[in-house]
């Protein structure tokens, strides 16, 4: 290594540098716990799927920590990001759902839950919940609905959306297989429940190959007018 002459003082010794001002120790209130969520809306069904791995840094905290939370008989929310904020946010949503039910004598619809979540998230615009949310459920007409959010409450209704650590790997695949993007001369059949479930399983198997935060197991919540059914599929554990 070459050192310039300016590093030496008049006495021939190297100059000492001491920082004498205040020192700021950075404490980060957030942690990244990994995990991927995915939601797909069909003609008369909705799917919300998530992996079940909870990690931090290079370690695994739990192999059985699903990220889908059931809100009502027709709505499931998937939350990934900072697990502490996921837990608090779902507690708050559940409390607000109860309050609504007691005041209005009916359950909240998916669209209403989405609108409410947007206001809850924006309420902490200057110290956000570090959570990527996706709501999946049936709307008032019984059609599948997916609402995707950013950490501060911007949302929109989608047909399909992936969120979390492997979202950048899953979203393009869904765009191609469900949205038929970048394809010609392909029969655009409407998405059936069986095809959607198969696609979600395959897509998570692929994500687990390349994303270190995704793996262990996949939990799919299938929402139809009959109710909410769960399916669990094992994924790579490494």
């Amino acid at each position, binding site marked *: *290594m*070459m050192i310039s002459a300016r590093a030496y003082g008049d006495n021939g010794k190297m100059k000492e540098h001491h920082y004498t001002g205040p020192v700021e120790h950075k404490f980060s209130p957030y942690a990244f716990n990994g995990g991927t969520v995915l939601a797909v809306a069909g003609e008369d069904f909705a799917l919300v799927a998530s992996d079940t791995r909870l*990690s931090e*840094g*290079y*370690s*695994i905290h739990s192999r059985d920590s699903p990220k889908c939370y059931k809100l009502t008989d027709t709505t499931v929310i998937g939350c990934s990001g900072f697990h502490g904020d996921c837990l608090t946010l779902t507690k708050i949503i559940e409390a607000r759902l109860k309050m609504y039910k007691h005041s209005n004598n009916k359950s909240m619809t998916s669209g209403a839950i989405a609108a409410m979540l947007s206001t809850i998230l924006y309420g902490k615009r200057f110290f956000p919940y570090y959570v990527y949310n996706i709501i999946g459920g049936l709307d008032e007409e019984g059609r599948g609905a997916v609402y995707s959010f950013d950490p501060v409450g911007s949302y929109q209704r989608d047909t399909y959306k992936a969120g979390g*650590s492997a979202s950048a790997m899953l979203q393009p695949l869904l765009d191609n*297989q469900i949205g038929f993007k*970048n*394809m*010609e*001369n*392909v029969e655009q059949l409407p998405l059936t429940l069986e*095809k959607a479930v*198969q*696609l979600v*399983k*395959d897509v998570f*198997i*692929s994500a*687990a*190959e*390349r*994303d*270190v*935060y995704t793996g262990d197991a996949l939990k799919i919540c299938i929402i139809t007018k009959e109710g909410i059914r769960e399916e669990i599929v*094992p*994924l*790579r*554990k*490494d």
Partner: protein
Amino acid sequence: MLNTSTKTLTGGFSFENTRRNAVLEANLSEKGYSAPNARKTGTTIAGLIFKDGVILGADTRATDDMVVADKNCMKIHYIAPKIYCCGAGVAADAEVTTQMMSSNVELHSLSTGRPPLVAMVTRQLKQMLFRYQGHIGSSLIVGGVDINGPQLYSIYPHGSYDKLPFLTMGTVTFSLPPFFEQTQSEQNLEEAKQLVRDAITAGIFCDLGSGSNVDLCVITEKTVDYLRAYDQPVQKGLREGTYRYKPGTTAVLTKTVTPLTLDVVDESVQVMDTE
């Protein structure tokens, strides 16, 4: 002395851009971007001396930040006929360092007329790594058999080394030594292979930076057994759907045909493996 308007040439690392990079990183991190990182191997590597020789073990995952870049890379590198080296840390550094060592060792052994010593490899490696003050980010486990018997050394990026009958390195260093505390150097081959396999498997499952298969390299006085994919504790999931595209799926925007006036001399057909 001439007023230096010409810069003196310095070989090796150039640190001119460090200040600019620090400023850029500070500005960019406000917008949420981070500077690109060198690809690290994540990694779990281990070495063990048993009755007849040395066993080296490694996982096979290479990561680019937290995305798997290579699912089946080789982390056990050849240095000399009876000396192999496991590399953790920055993938390029481990690869190039061991290749350079391999060349140097061959030249040295031609010059001395004797087979190389593991201690010699270790000394050359540590002297080089110390010279680079830790900027070459490779942690290595060197194991081999020479005239003094089986030996195992670990070398850290800043140039320090340890000589031990058992070694573990990589991101899960703290969880593996308990496995190895149970070893005795009088173990036989099968027990020793099983122990190293268990240790690497623990890393594969518990460390996000390690995964895929277990590679082993068994070095004895008589033979070297490079067991690539000795164990595959994780199977790739089976996809149910088919994702093949029929010809014509991708839109053709323009087509230009340029005929070449050539004579056909010979024709051979090689069938593509489409499944």
